[in-house]
């Protein structure tokens, strides 16, 4: 007793859209019982098996009788499976051939879908790796940028800042800033030539662009209570230059833009490099970079024999200020936490001998006007 059931049958004398016909897969031949005619037997050697149907999960038994093509479609998957697992002897070869075709189809389909999955996943994975290894990649990239390139970049960034501002060239304030800067950098071994600029601007702000240009706004000089306080800020900025923090920020932003434009095909975002460079002075530093600059700055103060209490006091003053008015805060988020860390650091290492500055701070402040 072989597999029996009903399948969709096409052939002579049957409805052209097929008829549901009971069949039995006997041991010698396939037997059909069409409604309109008598029992109909088909010898197995005439039958070919093919995958069939919309999703290729049916089995099609095809044969020819008197030049007419016949087919029995097993569209019931259980029936199809039964025939494949228990084929009569006469169909064994065809069933094996069919199994191979199914297997080949599965492999090809698997390959195709894996390819689609890969195409979809590669950008996601690439972004993930980029995100995960961003610091390492940025470090490597920054390490390859020569100082001369950095100086040119800083030069152009500074000239853009200077173009829209009044840069003071003489006066007690310029002398004080240059003097304090020189004293701080005397002990710094770096490939950079530091240049100090005082810009007449009421904002409480100071920033460093790559390559050694440090800009101090007169507003900051007015807000500082002593030369020591200004020295604290300058020491901090010197550290940003030496540790190449702005450059790192630039490379990181540019790298993300490049990566995103490659992945999403939007080349428009690459055009913004120049515009980005011009905003170098306003790049935000990370918390870690700020801490590094604070501690490095403190070490500079010690080597230059400058009282660290000025730096701490200035941070305390800034922390009290309202955020909107003090531009320095938007690029250097100052918190009481940072002042506290500095204080602890100073206590740890103990006080060091200090030498006062030769400037009368009140004269310096007076020379840049009052609010």
């Amino acid at each position, binding site marked *: 007793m072989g597999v029996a059931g009903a399948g*969709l049958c*096409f*052939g002579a004398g049957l*409805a*052209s*859209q*097929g008829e*549901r016909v009971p069949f039995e897969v006997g041991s010698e031949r396939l037997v059909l019982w069409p409604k309109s005619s008598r029992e109909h037997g088909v010898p197995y050697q005439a039958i070919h098996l093919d995958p*069939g*149907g*919309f*999703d*290729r999960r*049916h089995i*099609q038994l*095809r044969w020819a009788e008197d030049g007419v*093509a*016949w*087919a029995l*479609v097993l*569209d019931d998957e259980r029936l199809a499976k039964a025939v494949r697992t228990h084929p009569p002897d006469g169909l064994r070869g065809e069933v094996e051939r069919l199994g191979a075709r199914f297997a080949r189809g599965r492999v090809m*389909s698997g390959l*195709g*879908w894996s390819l*689609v999955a890969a195409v979809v996943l590669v950008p996601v994975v690439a972004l993930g790796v980029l995100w995960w290894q961003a610091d390492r990649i940025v470090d490597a990239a920054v390490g390859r940028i020569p100082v001369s390139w950095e100086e040119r970049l800083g030069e152009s960034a500074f000239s853009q800042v200077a173009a829209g501002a009044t840069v003071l060239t003489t006066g007690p304030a310029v002398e004080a800033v240059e003097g304090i800067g020189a004293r701080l950098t005397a002990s710094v071994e770096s490939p950079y030539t530091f240049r100090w600029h005082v810009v007449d601007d009421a904002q409480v702000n100071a920033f460093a662009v790559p390559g050694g240009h440090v800009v101090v706004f007169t507003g900051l000089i007015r807000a500082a209570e002593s030369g020591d306080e200004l020295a604290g800020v300058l020491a901090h900025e010197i550290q940003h230059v030496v540790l190449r923090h702005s450059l790192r920020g630039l490379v990181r932003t540019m790298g993300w833009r490049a990566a995103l434009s490659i992945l999403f095909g939007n080349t428009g975002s690459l055009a913004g490099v120049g515009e980005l460079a011009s905003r170098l002075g306003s790049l935000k530093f990370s918390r870690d970079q700020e801490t590094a600059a604070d501690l490095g700055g403190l070490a500079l103060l010690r080597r230059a024999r400058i009282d660290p209490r000025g730096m701490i006091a200035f941070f305390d003053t800034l922390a009290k200020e309202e955020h909107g008015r003090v531009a320095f805060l938007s690029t250097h988020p100052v918190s009481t936490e940072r002042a506290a860390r500095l204080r602890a650091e100073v206590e740890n290492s103990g006080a060091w001998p200090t030498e006062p500055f030769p400037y009368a701070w009140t004269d310096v402040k007076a020379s840049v006007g009052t609010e």
Partner: protein
Amino acid sequence: MPQMHVIDYEIFGSEMQYVEIELDPEEAAVAEAGGMMYMTDGIEMETIFGDGSGSRPGLFGALVGAGKRLLTGESLFMTVFVNKSREKRRVAFAAPYPGKIVPMMLGELGGRLICQKDAFLCAAKGVSIGIAFQKRLGVGLFGGEGFIMEKLEGDGLAFIHAGGTLAERTLAPGEMLRVDTGCIVAMQSSVQYDIEYVGKIKSALFGGEGLFFATLRGPGRIWLQSLPLSRLANRIYAAAPQTGGRREEGSILGGLGGLLDGDR
């Protein structure tokens, strides 16, 4: 096997058709939400979640069915029109674009029909409307019908809609027909749907028929449409003045002709 409702119908119109269905008392028809044209007094409309075939019992079954319907780009809900009166009543459903409405006796077609995803118009209650997912990557990408097609199952009557003129053909076992992708409306589930590369790079690039043909291999009956809606929409869009297109019908004067015939 769920109870199928036997319904009588009449199709009106030639190129823009509607079908009027006669419902005996307590008989019902399901349709895509928004397909109804008119209904006589005594027919009540009810919006249901799923297709009302009752083939998947329970809330979960209904959710699965509705989710699949979302995939075909149709609404989550279908509307059931039930005749609650004691006499015969009529409800009509209109085709959404020029073409033909085709009645399909699913029982005579092996109980299962695969159709293009927006072809379904309405059916006797009891017909299950599911999706047939195209697992073959090439066919899904280049076959013109995408990866999702609709699968109508049951013994009852269903109406599908084809754009333009309808071609109905019966393929003998092994007989093959090459079809422009996009022209397929429906096929019996025994038909093999495949794609075939046009063969020559020159015809692929300049022949205007695309890179692939759809091939349909028998046995089984197939229904083709002469004008897929997307093709019609493309032509209309290209000719719309807002999109800068201006397709003159045989005017050798071009822009001047447009000026002369006044439709500026």
